[in-house]
């Protein structure tokens, strides 16, 4: 079924919207959740919560790209679940590693009172991603959006792991520069 038809079902409050979503995007959402949680049972629950999230947010939303819309919901739910799990100390996986890496991108004197609203930070990130080459952007997002392991990214793009690490390091440095340029000064 086309995305537009699925979205129409949501707008009509027709519950087939959920089954059609599951049929078309269930596994994609599962792969997003699993990349973060590394646990099948938890991932399945997050995917189910994603459907509820979609049901509750369409309408009013009318996503142009349903797959990305769902992936965002899945990622948000999965990250929340992982953060909750971390407080219970059940392992952080790629999340903890990527978080440590992202810390390098934050200017050292960036104080709490300078805190940007998330949407403003997203705007800056979108600008930054626009400036990257397609390859750099894909590798960066595989790592920090999907939380893919370096090994998997290397395999996916047919790069050596060291090349991926170097690309990511340079991209993080660029991001640091970009954030500083946006007035987030040291």
């Amino acid at each position: 079924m086309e995305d537009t038809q699925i979205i129409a079902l949501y707008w009509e409050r027709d519950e087939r919207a959920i089954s059609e979503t599951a049929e078309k995007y269930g596994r994609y959402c599962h792969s997003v959740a699993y990349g973060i949680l590394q646990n099948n049972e938890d991932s399945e629950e997050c995917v189910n919560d994603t459907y509820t999230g979609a049901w509750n947010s369409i309408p009013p939303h009318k996503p142009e790209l349903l797959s990305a819309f769902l992936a965002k919901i899945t990622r948000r739910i999965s990250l929340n679940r992982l953060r909750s799990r971390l407080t219970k100390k059940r392992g952080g996986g790629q999340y903890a590693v990527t978080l440590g890496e992202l810390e390098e991108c934050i200017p050292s004197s960036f104080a709490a009172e300078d805190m940007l609203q998330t949407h403003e930070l997203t705007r800056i990130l979108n600008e930054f991603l626009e400036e990257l080459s397609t390859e750099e952007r894909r590798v960066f997002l595989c790592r920090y959006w999907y939380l893919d392991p370096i090994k998997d990214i290397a395999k996916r793009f047919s790069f050596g792991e060291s090349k991926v690490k170097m690309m990511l390091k340079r991209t993080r440095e660029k991001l640091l520069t970009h954030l500083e340029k946006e007035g987030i000064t040291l």
Partner: protein
Amino acid sequence: MKPEQLQDALNEIKDEYITDAHGENSVTESASVGNAKGHKKKTRTLWRHKPFRIVFATTVGLILLAGGGLLLSTSLFGKKGIYIPPRELPKPSSSADMVGLLCHNGKVYVSTGAYNYSGSSDVDTKETVFRYAGTYLGEAIDNIDDWNWNGPEGVVDLASTTGGSVHTVVGYDEDFRLCKIGEWYPEEGGVRYFIDYYECLSGITLTKGSDLLEDRLHLSEMLPDTTDPAVKEFLALLNEAPFVYVEDNSVPYNIYHGDPTGDFRRKKNYSTRLKITPIDNVTISFIVYKNGYVCYNQYDMSDNYFMVVDPASVEFLFQ
């Protein structure tokens, strides 16, 4: 600013970056793009990277081989079985392995992801959880980072990624399956318990399916009476299926990591998951590929070790 905020802000980036990064829109998906009125549709194109084409061609070739009568059989299905080398702990500074680990008797067990945990305070009591647990082996040391092993050389008994009390599992061999009981404290007060399972399928030789399904999982004893007869018949076939080793992702279309074409929607055409809940509720699953390759869905086995049956025998799972 905390890195978590950066992660959260990343969540809301432009949709097309998200789908593009993982190739989710890469083959056939049509989407309204770049048109405010949303009238014009544009079909996105497959990443035209040579490696993708090579992997795809290789995969198709292997599937044809398998579908055409398992031509690989004579060379790969040796009578001596397939040896799965012992798992090593991750090296310092290596990239994340991301799997729960538990060491015992010189073996490294990996988390199965199976939990006996209902979320209900009536069910997750000490009594109900402990009925699955056998002999108490000690407290897990909780000294292995998910991505790094900084401990002494070699496997230290009960080294692990998370804490908890380690037990054997009632009805299973200690060399194969262990469990760890953890407790947590819900907001509404009290204590609840959960049990998670670890299995070791490394450092062993598997010749045919029964080495796993019967000798270790005891499925014929553990299947509930209500199990679908077609599933029972299929498991009987699996018992006789030879184990084969397959190079990384060359045959299967991995259910979680995408197929080589990058088109996640096509995966359902190639693979499906067969989930089985034995009478002790420790759910297991198999990834079944249309070409007759069947993988026990456990970290030691994934992507490399398969049982192979006649493709016709898995058709019922795709209907």
